[in-house]
């Protein structure tokens, strides 16, 4: 009647057979980084992958237990829990469910700025010529809500959208009404330089629940250099606009993004200090857009990418120091990658998805009804490159947009799992595919990885973040996790014992 106890060997016998689960590897900091199919990683001693391939890992070792726990091996003493692993893989692909979530409406091309990197704006156009018509707006709203996603975000863009405020006032109530009728959640955000934002406009946005996203490239000298306008006061107007927007809409409804230009590259600490001075708690060290001028100087791309990477690393160090001082400042690009590396979640950031987020997760509705796979594809069209124009709201429905030649050509090369250079890469789960970038910079949607700026940038940043992860400094990791969870920054704790 009484039960016996059995020793450990009874429950963990020598396996007759050790099998591998799919994984990729890279050599980093004298170790091997192994990454499984769900993006979970393990740092292992050099030679581990060879031992795994040869089937000679010591099954009694702690390393073997680690490999099993991380779903890199399985054996006949315990099921590989394939269903659990499959669930984790599915979670990473969550961005696929629901279809297009971000819908960018270009309400006008008119703009009073003449930023160097912008190809689209029309400074001298008269009202109406490059504005979205009511008919186009109606069709665009309808198409937006055809997306299967239960929740969509409508982003009002331009040119400078506030120059077409009357069109915004046409779109907003109709979008909300239609969203409610069709049972979908709707978020609206307006992307504006705020230079001509009146209090009436801001009040309107507050009343309609529209959030504001604006640009702040750094301190005055840099911001104004990047963004010429009559009076050369883009910075002053931006700051004034930010203050008034916060007062009227509330602090949390005003966000700022920076555009990194060649001029920015030597001033990362000043840019960061500007964000802190202006009480922002997020900053996005975005790479230089390859579109516009940079495209014309292709040979300089490699050099510029090196300089950007220096900019990023120096910037991240400075940002970490600021966080250690108790001021919460999240670097968004790092946060997106850390989320892919450290958490079970995927990402909603369209530029780092595989299948690529363009078209699939974002659509751009131009003022004339042309539908593009991304904002960058719209800029290519300004240079008469129509490769990524999917159709037009007046001629197409969702089905024809997504089965257009432009869409299908793009989808074919959208999965990094099957692209040369990416299919074996250890960072595949953390990176993405960007056919539009490769088309613009290399003349080929498929992309040539060894010379790709997209590849170089992501690989270097990912390696840089893994160096932090491997170092495992409690305070740095505490800061990263505070970014990821939204929880407070770690408190400085005195070391005991």
């Amino acid at each position, binding site marked *: 009647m009484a039960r016996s106890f059995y020793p450990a060997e009874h429950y963990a016998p020598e396996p007759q057979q050790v099998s591998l*689960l*799919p994984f990729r590897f890279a050599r980093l900091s004298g170790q091997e980084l192994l990454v499984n199919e769900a993006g979970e990683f393990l740092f292992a001693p050099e030679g581990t992958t060879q031992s795994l391939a040869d089937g000679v890992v010591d099954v009694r070792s702690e390393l073997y237990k680690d490999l099993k726990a991380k779903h890199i091996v399985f054996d006949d003493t315990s099921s590989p829990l394939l269903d659990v692993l499959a669930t984790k893989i599915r979670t990473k692909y969550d961005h696929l469910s629901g279809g297009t979530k971000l819908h960018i409406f270009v309400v006008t091309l008119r703009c009073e700025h003449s930023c160097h990197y912008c190809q689209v704006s029309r400074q001298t156009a008269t009202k109406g010529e490059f504005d979205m018509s009511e008919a186009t707006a109606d069709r665009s709203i309808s198409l937006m809500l055809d997306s299967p996603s239960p929740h969509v975000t409508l982003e009002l863009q331009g040119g400078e959208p506030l120059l077409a405020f009357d069109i915004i006032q046409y779109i907003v109530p109709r979008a909300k009404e239609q969203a409610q009728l069709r049972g979908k959640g709707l978020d609206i955000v307006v992307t504006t330089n705020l230079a001509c934002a009146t209090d009436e406009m801001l009040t309107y946005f507050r009343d309609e629940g529209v959030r504001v996203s604006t640009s702040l490239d750094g301190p005055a000298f840099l911001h104004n250099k990047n963004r010429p306008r009559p009076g050369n006061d883009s910075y002053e107007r931006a700051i004034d606009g930010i203050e008034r927007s916060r007062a009227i809409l509330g602090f949390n409804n005003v966000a700022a993004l920076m555009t990194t230009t060649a001029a920015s590259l030597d001033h990362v600490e000043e840019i960061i200090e500007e964000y802190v001075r202006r009480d922002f708690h997020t900053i996005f060290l975005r790479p230089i857009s390859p579109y516009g001028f940079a495209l014309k100087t292709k040979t300089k791309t490699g050099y510029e990418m090196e300089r950007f990477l220096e900019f990023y690393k120096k910037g991240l160090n400075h940002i970490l120091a600021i966080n250690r001082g108790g001021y919460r400042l999240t670097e968004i690009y790092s946060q997106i990658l850390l989320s892919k590396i450290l958490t079970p979640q995927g990402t909603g950031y369209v530029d780092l998805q595989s299948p690529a987020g363009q078209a699939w997760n974002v659509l751009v509705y131009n003022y004339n009804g042309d539908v593009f796979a991304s904002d960058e594809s719209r800029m290519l069209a300004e240079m008469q490159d129509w490769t990524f124009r999917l159709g037009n709201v007046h001629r197409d429905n969702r089905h024809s947009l997504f089965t257009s030649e432009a869409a299908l050509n793009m989808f074919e090369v959208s999965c990094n799992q099957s692209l040369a250079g990416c299919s074996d890469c250890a960072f595949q789960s953390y990176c993405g595919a960007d056919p539009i970038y490769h088309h613009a910079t290399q003349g080929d949607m498929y992309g040539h990885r060894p010379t790709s700026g997209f590849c170089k940038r992501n690989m270097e940043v990912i390696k840089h973040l893994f160096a932090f992860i491997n170092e495992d400094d409690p305070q740095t990791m505490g800061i990263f996790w505070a970014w990821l969870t939204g929880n407070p920054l770690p408190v400085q704790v005195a070391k005991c014992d």
Partner: protein
Amino acid sequence: MEIDTQSPLPQGTVTIHVRHDLVSVDALLKTCYWFSRDFVCDVSRDSEKQSTVRLKPKAGSDHPLDEAQEQFMAAALDFALRERVTVQTLSVRDLLLAKAFSESGVLEEQPLGVFGDAVEEAKPDGMFKILSNS
């Protein structure tokens, strides 16, 4: 095991002989793909068992030539290793992805092992026998 090499030729070219019992053609080509950023890779098939690669630095590249040989060999062996892992995991990967993208419950495994205590297992209509029949 080693890949035979010759010392660099005077013009700044590196020659590497690759044995296909260690590194397959595919693995070799993948290595050349990555090295094509800094080198022109001239590959010739000597025989069923061996190919030769000549690496010539591209203009504007500052990749040190003396390191290139060693790095090429190491990279080629790594690609060969990846191939072995891929071959061993091909079918389970297909299964995993099929499960990940299938409807809930459709491709799931039946629970394995003994679930009950001695009392339950002794019952002819024990709950786990019923569950396994449903």
